[in-house]
């Protein structure tokens, strides 16, 4: 068991020790002792317990000690606030052959299953966070208590794996197929939702929930009462109801199809197969099947890209590439928002909620100002209603926001951002006007999505104070913020913008001011290829199906409907003018705008989508239709070439910044690694640019 070594190049394992102590059960109503295993890696809760090869060996040794003890039962618990956060993923990216991958899976099973196969009753006291392998070790135990504040879950499918240390086999048998699909598939796909203790109890994952203040004491009391027979835990046999299993699997398949637009997502298919097989499988056969699935996924490019993307998201959340020293940032004591439309109101709301300073909004007339204020106050009221904000906090924030038709109220603002109509001349004159009102210290920002920030700054007295501050819609939900520096923008302004972005809890990418920055530039380029194909005569359904194998959150034409043909077409025209002919002006889109057609699709009241006949009527019949495959290659090639250009132009300095933009700005899935790892592994990067974006091994198999 101990001969399993970390793969070459993997970081040294932070070993989770497993201590065994004997607990006298006499004060709890039973005779004898309980062998209590504590998982503790010696760090605080910021570095959760994980299972690498040495940690598994330590746990194995602890189980041996507990088995050899005269104790009447065995229990396992964690360190304060943390039970265990699962497998140590840092080694997986370095696995170089399937045998190694199989061995890791098998090692976990060999250790964990001892809890299930022990002659002594086994208990998991889940005192805190238990994810993935952390929850699986608990599932191998016969009984589970969970602290009322503990979050639990199986995020494997979200990450590109299957719950392959017993979870996919034990859970369906334990809590039934429907609940298992909920935990393993639906929760994982729903932004990696974790279970609260009450959910874990309702789903059957937990047998009992105790408050954290004396969780261990009550858990031991619970164990004693199970041992002395005063408490009986009934387990239902779920394996008889075959129909329930087929139905649960169908629900899971539906959710996967919806989430990934019909793409084949290997880990989801494998997880559902494991759940389905669990009905008739022995545990042993199920564990063997898990080993095989885990190994094949671990040795796959999509998983490597997922791990790269997951780590990138964690890293970029903390560190902003190219940010000036944080100490340079000015303190923000009052925020101004120019415009009271929907975007401006959303900006005002997020500033208000996070900065908790006075926020003032202006617009051309009082009616628009009032509408903006009403929106903000309404959103605060909704938060109170959903119990996500206290009435006091809402009252405080409500009193901090005000509006006017007179921009003079910006006079003492420290940060003013505009979200007015996307028209360069309008914005230029706005900043000239603002500079006459605000103090010399005030940082000015534009939320433009495609106009040149540099051109706006050129008319200013102090161009060094202007910066692009580009949010994504909906502002409160989308985690990305593109910060655009012009050649004139100084470090104080940038540091202030980054500091505000941090307070807004956004992940930021600092870009060189250039048309449409990163996300919109890539999206517009790629959408242009889809609409071009339609203009050329490709049927819309074929064109729209082109990207299906990628598993994007929505189809190209659904995205177009969401953005709106007006905005999309406006951006395309701007980029056509500023970046060149490769951004084409689609006659179909022009016709959509001219005729007020909003989308290719219509949705009825129950959410069922159908083709919009008004859209079809506007299509010109082109003469050179493409296949879906051809459209996809063309769109991906466009993405590769545009991304390479952006790196060459220095829009961003690293390929991973482009990836983080697509992950967080568009919600593109982890298994694409953003987008560049996918372009690398499909050979498109080398085909189009004669080089990869990432070296082999970074976001792919080495």
């Amino acid at each position, binding site marked *: 068991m101990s001969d399993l070594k970390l793969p070459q190049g993997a970081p040294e394992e932070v070993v989770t020790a497993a201590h065994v102590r004997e607990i*006298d059960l006499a*004060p709890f109503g039973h005779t004898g002792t309980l062998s*209590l295993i504590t998982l503790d890696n010696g760090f605080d809760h910021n570095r959760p317990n994980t299972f690498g090869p040495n940690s598994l060996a330590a746990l194995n040794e602890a189980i041996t000690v507990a088995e050899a003890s005269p104790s009447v039962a065995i229990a396992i618990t964690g360190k304060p606030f943390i039970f265990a956060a699962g497998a140590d993923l840092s080694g997986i990216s370095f696995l170089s052959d399937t045998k190694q991958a199989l061995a890791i899976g098998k090692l976990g099973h060999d250790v964990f299953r001892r809890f299930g196969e022990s002659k002594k009753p086994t208990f998991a006291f889940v005192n805190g966070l238990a994810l993935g392998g952390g929850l699986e070790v608990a599932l191998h135990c016969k009984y589970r208590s969970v602290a009322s504040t503990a979050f639990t879950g199986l995020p494997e499918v979200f990450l590109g794996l299957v719950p392959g240390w017993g979870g996919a086999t034990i859970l369906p048998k334990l809590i039934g197929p429907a609940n298992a699909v909920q935990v393993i598939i639906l929760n994982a796909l729903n932004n990696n939702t974790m279970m609260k203790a009450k959910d874990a109890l309702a789903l059957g994952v937990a047998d009992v929930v105790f408050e954290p203040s004396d969780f261990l*004491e009550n858990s031991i009391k619970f164990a004693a009462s199970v041992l002395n027979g005063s408490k009986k835990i009934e387990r239902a046999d779920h394996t008889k109801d075959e129909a329930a299993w087929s139905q649960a699997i169908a629900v899971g398949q539906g959710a996967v199809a919806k989430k990934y637009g019909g793409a084949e997502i290997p880990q989801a298919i494998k997880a559902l197969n494991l759940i389905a097989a669990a009905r008739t499988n022995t545990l042993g056969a199920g564990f063997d099947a898990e080993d095989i699935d885990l190994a094949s996924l671990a040795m796959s490019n999509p998983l490597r890209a997922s791990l790269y993307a997951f780590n990138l998201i964690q890293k970029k959340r903390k560190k902003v590439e190219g940010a000036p020293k944080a100490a340079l940032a000015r303190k923000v004591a009052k925020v101004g928002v120019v415009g009271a439309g929907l975007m401006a109101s959303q900006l005002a709301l997020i500033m208000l909620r996070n900065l908790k300073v006075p926020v003032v909004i202006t617009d051309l007339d009082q009616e628009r100002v009032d509408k903006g204020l009403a929106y903000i106050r309404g959103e605060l009221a909704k938060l109170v209603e959903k119990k996500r904000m206290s009435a006091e906090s809402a009252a405080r924030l409500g009193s901090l926001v005000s509006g006017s038709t007179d921009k003079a109220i910006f006079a003492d603002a420290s940060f003013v951002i505009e979200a007015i109509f996307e028209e360069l001349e309008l914005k230029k004159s706005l900043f000239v006007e603002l500079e006459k009102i605000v103090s010399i210290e005030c940082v000015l920002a534009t939320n433009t999505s495609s106009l040149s920030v540099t051109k706006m700054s050129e008319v200013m007295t102090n161009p060094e104070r202007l910066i692009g501050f580009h949010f994504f819609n909906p502002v409160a939900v989308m985690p990305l913020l593109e910060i655009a520096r012009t050649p004139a923008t100084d470090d104080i302004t940038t540091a202030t913008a980054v500091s505000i972005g941090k307070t807004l809890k956004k992940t930021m990418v600092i870009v060189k001011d250039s048309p449409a920055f990163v996300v919109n530039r890539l999206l517009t380029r790629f959408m242009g290829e889809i609409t071009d194909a339609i203009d050329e005569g490709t049927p819309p359904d074929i064109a729209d199906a082109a990207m299906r194998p990628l598993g994007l959150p929505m189809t190209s034409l659904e995205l177009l409907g969401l953005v709106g043909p007006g905005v999309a077409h406006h951006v395309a025209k701007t980029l056509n003018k500023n970046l060149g002919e490769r951004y084409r002006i689609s006659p179909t889109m022009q016709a959509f705008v001219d005729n007020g057609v909003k989308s290719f699709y219509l949705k009825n009241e129950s959410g069922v989508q159908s083709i919009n006949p008004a859209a079809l009527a506007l299509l010109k019949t082109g003469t050179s239709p493409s296949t879906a495959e051809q459209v996809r290659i063309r769109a991906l090639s466009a993405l590769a070439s545009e991304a390479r250009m952006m790196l060459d132009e220095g829009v961003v300095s690293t390929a991973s910044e482009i990836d983080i933009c697509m992950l967080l700005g568009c919600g593109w899935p982890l298994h694409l690694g953003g987008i560049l790892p996918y372009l690398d592994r499909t050979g498109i990067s080398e085909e189009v640019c004669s080089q990869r974006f990432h070296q082999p091994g970074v976001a792919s198999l080495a």
Partner: protein
Amino acid sequence: MNERVVLVDAVRSPFGKAGSLYSQTRADDIMVRTLRGLLERNPKVLPEAIDEVAIAAATQTGDQGMNIGRSVSLLAGIPDSVPGYSIDRWCAGALTAVTTVSGAIAMGQYDIAIAGGVEHMGNHPMGEGMDPNPRYLAEKLVDTDALQMGMTAERLHDKFPHLTKARADAYAVASQNKTAAAYTAGKIQRDLIPVAVRSVELGWGMATVDEPPRPGTTVEGLAALKTPFRPMGNVTAGNAAGLNDGATAAILASESKANELGLGIKAKLVSFAFAGVAPEIMGYGPVPSTIKALAKAGLTISDIGLFEINEAFAIQVLSFLDHFGIADDDARVNQYGGAIAVGHPLASSGVRLMINLARGFEEHPEVQYGLTTMCIGLGMGGSIIWENPHFNGSSAKVAK
């Protein structure tokens, strides 16, 4: 405005040696667990019906700070509406918490209150952060010995030369033996609340019994111990309480509320008193405080059937017994042993005396009155006289 005060229930954590059992467990966590254990076994006392949570600690910083009475109440999940405060009279903290809330109950201002104490002497060594006013020494207000508890015990030996080290050691051995016997009979464990203890090195453990007792202690063994406070001294680690961690908690109520809710009554408060002595002989404090409490009650020492005297030092108990003409080995005194065996986490100890007295009352329905008393640093004593609710004899005398 004249309610009878009763002790409904009292519990404690197992006591630990400083730097050992609870070395990685916070004082407030021990207190919270003790409090929750108390409420768990008294389900008729609804947390929202508690009028006060008074918790003592001799050092009120860090994990014993933040107004520990309020803080542990919030941490224990007692509703926001229940108030709390912290209290300090050094060793007599919990005893004072009891008398203070009892005063309010007697005045009819509270119906039900929690009183308790906690001391984590591992986290807060005696004298931590102390900054004695230079006037104490400059103006000879006290002798240097007054601030060193071991020295004050040596001073008691000086004052009463007939209370020898041999008698102190014999008393200490008896305390260990009585505690060992009480443990064997399962008498102590009944009121201990198990507390989870953290150890990074060993993993989670469970404190279920006191750590300090040394069963099998002999007079010969004690005779060989060093006298750390002075050469050729009398006070040793063997005839004194150690440095300990632990917590205690009690429910007090008006008799009418207790009856209304059907709560058990373990003891009825008769009278209490505090009194001062010269700081250099602080261990003598229980003598004047007991005299005062007896006078308030209209009782004499012969009316007291059970004594619970805190054993900060054997000499301090001996000087008390000597004053009242009670034998060193009188069976009425500390029947389960005392702090020399189980430990003395300063501000928590007062309620431990009541736990033992209440159990003594159950065992001895022929006893009508009992006393809990302790000495207090800087020269004080505190005493509470209790009446046995299980008393089945004919009253020798009725307290005022």
